[in-house]
């Protein structure tokens, strides 16, 4: 269970404690937070990895995965956002899907028909829905995998996938990077319906529309040059 954390001290301890009731091994990567996030994590039984400076969510995820892979017992690797927008039971259900052996990767989707049905009064805001559906429909690799939701922070990877995944996009473009990695390899990917808890807190911390421009730029220059 990998949780990238950046300035979430008001919620992180609650989120981690809830996770620990179900998942024994939780790794929190504190991505150079300026607040008390690290101290809050230290009060729990979660593993704490601290970036000495802020690098971005993609970098934090990769660090967390590298750390988790260093634990020989780990078979399944879950990415989970720190702001409390995901439900622990969704994560559990996704681990079961991967454990069942039908797929190597389970990706959370808030747009599958089943997810739409369970989504309660706090449903996906209209402008977010439009943006996220557009990304999923326009990205060639997301289309190839028949994804409905390309930017969901809840994912379950088996060990084989986690070993081969190397996130180089430090910022928010890592979500698209992961999708293109999955479609380029011969990984079996399955989407699982999940609900997102859109609280005022997670809305304030979430992706803004304008950051989409940055993500597109990062991705378009990634493919250039032989450095990558």
């Amino acid at each position, binding site marked *: 269970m990998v949780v990238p954390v950046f300035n979430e001290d008001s919620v992180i301890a609650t989120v981690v404690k809830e996770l*620990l*009731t179900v998942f*024994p*091994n939780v790794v929190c*990567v504190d991505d150079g937070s300026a607040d008390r996030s690290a101290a809050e994590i*230290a009060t*729990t*039984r979660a*593993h*704490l*990895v*601290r*970036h*000495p*400076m802020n*690098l971005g969510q993609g*970098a934090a995820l*990769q*660090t967390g995965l*590298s*750390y*988790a892979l*260093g*634990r*020989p*017992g*780990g078979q399944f690797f879950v990415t989970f956002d720190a702001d409390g927008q995901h439900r622990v039971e969704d994560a559990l259900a996704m681990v079961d899907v991967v454990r069942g052996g039908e797929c190597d990767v389970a990706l959370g989707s808030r747009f599958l028909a089943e997810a739409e049905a369970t989504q309660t009064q706090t449903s996906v805001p209209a402008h977010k829905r439009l943006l996220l559906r557009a990304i999923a429909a326009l990205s060639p690799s997301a289309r190839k995998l028949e994804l409905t939701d390309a930017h969901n922070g809840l994912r379950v990877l088996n060990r084989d996938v986690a070993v081969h995944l190397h996130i*180089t996009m*430090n910022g928010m473009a890592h979500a698209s990077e992961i999708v293109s990695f999955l479609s380029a390899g011969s990984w079996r990917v399955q989407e699982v319906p999940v609900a997102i808890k859109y609280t005022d807190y997670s809305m304030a911390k979430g992706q803004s529309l304008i950051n989409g421009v940055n993500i597109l730029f990062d991705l378009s*220059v990634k493919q*250039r*040059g*032989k*450095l990558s």
Partner: protein
Amino acid sequence: MWIQVLLIVGAVASLLAFARFEHGVRMQASKKLAFFGFVALTVYSVLRPNDVNWVANRLGVGRGADLILYIMAIAMIFLVLNTFMRFRAIDRQMTDLVRALALREAERDNAERLGAAAMRGESTPASD
């Protein structure tokens, strides 16, 4: 006009150079050669400005000063791309460094905090 062809080719070429070419010894060397060539040209054009005017007229540019301005614009594109690539490379190195450091400290601190069993990733339920 020749100058239009030259400018467009120059701008596109510098973009392609960064998109395609390997940034090995050859690229490094050609950057240095280009720099020395630039310095030599500068000295020459200061000493004999009329020659620059002559070249400019051949290329369809009114004045030598305008020609130099156009060349500067191309050089600017080159410089921006060069700096961008350099920053990106440094970014990657820094990420690797920060990650290595973070992992090393975490291995040590978490072993102390959580015990050896947790470090092996065994599925023992949390006790608090």
